[in-house]
C-alpha cells in the first residue's frame, strides 16, 4: 500500500466539501431542536432541496438560482411538517419519518428526466494573496462560496441564539413551552418559523450535494446524509461551534474511506462504506452513555407537543 499517494492538500480540500452539506442541514436542525421540535425529516427535506436546486439550476442556467430553488423547496416541504405538528398537533417522530419517506418519493418523481445532466457550477472564491498561500491556499481558501457561507451561517446562528433577545426566546420556548406561553410568547408561531428555517437549511445542504459535491442528480442521492446531520446535532450537544467540528469529523471519515477504497486497501469496500455510519453510531453511544452531560444541554421540551390549554 502506498500512502504517499494521499495528497494532504487534496484531502483537506475534499473534506471541507464533504462536510458542507451535513453542516448546512445540521445547523438548521439545531435551531429546530433548540425550539423544542424534533424533525426527523431532514433526509427527506435534503433530497427535495437537492432535486429542486438541480432542476432550477439546469433550467435557469444559474447555480445561484438553483440554491434559491432548493431553499424554497426545503421551506415548502418543511411547512407540511410544521402544519402537521404545530397546527394539527400530530406526533413529531411519526410525522418526521413520514416526511423523509415522502421526500424520497416525491424527489424521485419530479427528478425523473434530469438524470445524467451536468448542472451549472459555482466559481471558486479567489481571495487575493491569501488563496495563493502554499498549502492553506489550495486546501482551505479556494473553494466555492457555499463552503464559507455554511460556516458563516453557523456563526450567525450562534450569535442569534446566544446574543439576541429573539434567540433567547427561541431557547426558552424549547426549554419549557408552558412557561414561555405563560410569559406571553407565541410558542406555535416561533416553532413554525424555526421549522421553516430548518427546511431551508436542509434544502441548501441537499442542493450542495447535487450541484457541487456529486454534481448530478440521481434518485436517493443523499444516501443517509440527513441522518448523519441529525446525529451531529446530538454529537454537538446542541452547540453551534461543536457542530462544525462534528461535520468535519464525519466529512473526514467519509473522505478517508473513499481514499482508502481508491488506494485498494485490503478491507472490503462494504466495510469502508459503512465507516461513516458506524462512527455515527459509536459516537452517539459514547455520548449517551454519559447521560448527565448530554441531557444537560438537551432542550427540555424537545419532541413534546404543545397545546395552549387552560
Amino acid at each position: 500500500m502506498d500512502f504517499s499517494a494521499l495528497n494532504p492538500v487534496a484531502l483537506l480540500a475534499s473534506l471541507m466539501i464533504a462536510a458542507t452539506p451535513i453542516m448546512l442541514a445540521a445547523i438548521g436542525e439545531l435551531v429546530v431542536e433548540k425550539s423544542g421540535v424534533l424533525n426527523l425529516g431532514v433526509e427527506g427535506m435534503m433530497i427535495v432541496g437537492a432535486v429542486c436546486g438541480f432542476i432550477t439550476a439546469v433550467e435557469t442556467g444559474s447555480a445561484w438560482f438553483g440554491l434559491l430553488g432548493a431553499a424554497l423547496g426545503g421551506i415548502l416541504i418543511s411547512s407540511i411538517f410544521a402544519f402537521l405538528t404545530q397546527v394539527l398537533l400530530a406526533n413529531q417522530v411519526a410525522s418526521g419519518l413520514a416526511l423523509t419517506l415522502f421526500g424520497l418519493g416525491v424527489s424521485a418523481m419530479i427528478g425523473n428526466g434530469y438524470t445524467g445532466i451536468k448542472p451549472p457550477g459555482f466559481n471558486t472564491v479567489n481571495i487575493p494573496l491569501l488563496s495563493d498561500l502554499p498549502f492553506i491556499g489550495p486546501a482551505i481558501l479556494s473553494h466555492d462560496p457555499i463552503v464559507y457561507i455554511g460556516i458563516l451561517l453557523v456563526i450567525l446562528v450562534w450569535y442569534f441564539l446566544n446574543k439576541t433577545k429573539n434567540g433567547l426566546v427561541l431557547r426558552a420556548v424549547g426549554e419549557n413551552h408552558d412557561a414561555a406561553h405563560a410569559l406571553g410568547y407565541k410558542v406555535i408561531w416561533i416553532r413554525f418559523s424555526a421549522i421553516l428555517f430548518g427546511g431551508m437549511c436542509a434544502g441548501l445542504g441537499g442542493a450542495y450535494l447535487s450541484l457541487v459535491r456529486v454534481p448530478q442528480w440521481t434518485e436517493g442521492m443523499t444516501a443517509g446524509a440527513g441522518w448523519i446531520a441529525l446525529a451531529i446535532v446530538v454529537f454537538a450537544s446542541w452547540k453551534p461551534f461543536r457542530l462544525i467540528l462534528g461535520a468535519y469529523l464525519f466529512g473526514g471519515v467519509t473522505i478517508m474511506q473513499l481514499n482508502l477504497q481508491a488506494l485498494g486497501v485490503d478491507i472490503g469496500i462494504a466495510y469502508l462504506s459503512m465507516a461513516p455510519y458506524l462512527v455515527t453510531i459509536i459516537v452517539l453511544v459514547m455520548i449517551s452513555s454519559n447521560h448527565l452531560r448530554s441531557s444537560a444541554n438537551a432542550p427540555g421540551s424537545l419532541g413534546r407537543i404543545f397545546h395552549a390549554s387552560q
Partner: protein
Amino acid sequence: MSNISLLEIDGVSKSYPGVIANENVKFTIKTGEIHALLGENGAGKSTLVKTIYGLVKPDKGLMKLNGNLYSPNEPRDARSCGVAMVFQHFSLFNALTVAENIALGMESPPSIDRLSSKIETISIEYGLPINPEKMVGSLSAGEQQRVEIIRCLLQNPKLLIMDEPTSVLTPNEIKTLFSTLKKLKREGTSILYISHKLEDIRSICDTATILRGGKNVGTCDPKKENVRNIAKMMIGETIKIPKKKSTISKLIALEVDCLNWVPRDSSQKQLKNISFKLLKGEILGIGGVAGNGQDELTDILSGEILSNKSTIRLFDNSIGDIGINKRRLLGLLTAPEERLGHAAIPDMDLIENTNLTAHTREKLVKKSGIIDWKKTQEFTKNIIKEFDVRTPNAKVAAGSLSGGNLQKFVIGREVLQKPLVFIVNQPTWGVDAAAASSIKQAILDLASTGSAVIIISQDLDELLELTDNFMAINSGEMSQKINTQGLTVDEIGLMIGGTGAYWKRHD
C-alpha cells in the same frame, strides 16, 4: 393603605364546557393593600387570576385599573399596565441563567451584563439574595421564587399577583418573603395574594375575598374575622378535625440498621448512618427541608433502590435486598411524593393504575399471567367509594383528576391493601383542606388497626397533628427519635435545620 381603588373587578364570569370557573365575581383592590384571594382548589382562583393577567378572556364583566377600562389581551398588555405575576408552578427555564430568565419576562431588556448588576441592586434592596449567573435549575424552590419576584419588581408593578407563594417554602423562607411583601406594601404596591392557607393570610393580608365554586362568597378583614368562620365560608361546611387514638405495641414492625447509601449521580443525596425502629401501631414523622434525603430514603424503604440485606428488617424478614413487589407481599407499601408520574401514570385510567401497585397483594393477576380485570375493577370501585374520590367513573385517566382527588386515590389504593407498614411521602401536599382532612383521618385509622406508619413531610403542622414520634432529616442524616407530644413548631424548625440537642453527628 389608602382608600383609592387600584383594580375593580365587576361581574366577571368565565365558563368552560361543563364547568363554571367564575360567576359574577366582584371585588376591589385598593392601592397599597395586600388583598387575599382565598378558596379551595377548584374554587376559581386560578381562572380569575389568569383573567387579570391577560391569559384568559372573561365571557362577561368588566375590570377597571385606576378608573380606566382594563381588558388585557395577553400578558404583555397586563405587564405594560403595571400588573405582574409570580406563578405557583414557576414559569422558569431550568437550563437558562437567572439573568436570562429575568430578561425573558421584560419587554425590552438591557444587555445581560447591565441586567445582572440591576438584579444585584434590587436583590440587596429587597433582601432577596441571588446570583444572576447561576443556572435556575440548580436553585432551591425558595431561590427560584426570588427569581420570579425580582423579575416582577424590575417592571415597577402597581399590582403584584402571587399564586400560592408559600406552598414550596420553608418557615424561614416564608419570613423573608413576608418582610419583602410588607416593604412593597409600604412603597404603595398592591398585592393580590392567592392562597388556601388561612394562617398565612391572617398574618399579612389586609382584606380577604373568599371564592367558592366560582362565586364570591364574602369579603372580610382576616385579622378580625374568626378562623372557623373563614374556613366555613371557604368550604361551605365545617371541617372535621382528625381524631387520634394511639395504640402502640412493643413489637418492632420495621427496623433500619446503619443504613449508608452513596448516590450514583450528583442530583441525589447521600444517606449517612441512619438507624431507627418503628413499632407496630406507631406513626413516625420524618420532617425536613426538601432535598435533604427524603426521596432517597423513601425509595430505599419502598424497595425502588436496593441496599444490603440486613439494613432493613420487616418483622422477621431481612428485606434490604428485595424488590418492591416482594416487599408488598410481605406487607410494606409505599405512596411516593410525586402523584403524577411516580405514584400514578397520568395517561392510564384508575383501574389500570390500581392494578400496577395492588396486583401482588390483592391477587389481581391470575396464575396464568392474565390480568383479572373484574377483580381489579371491583377493588378500584371500592377505593373510589371508601375514599370519596370524585370522578365520573373508574375509567378516567389519572391525570384528569384534581390533585386532591388523585391523592385520595393514591393513598386509598395502598391503605385498602391493609399494609403492615405504610410509608407515605408528603401525603397532603397541594391538596385542599377537605381532602387533606380525610387523608389524615385515613392514616390515623390505619394506625389504630395496628399498622405502623411513616409520614415523611415538610408540613410541620401536619407532623405535629398526626405523629406519635418525630425524627428530623438533614443532609442525609437523621436525628434521634423523640416524642411528638409537647414539641413546638419552633423546636422542630431548629431540628430540621440540623441543630439542637437531638443530634448526634457521626463524622
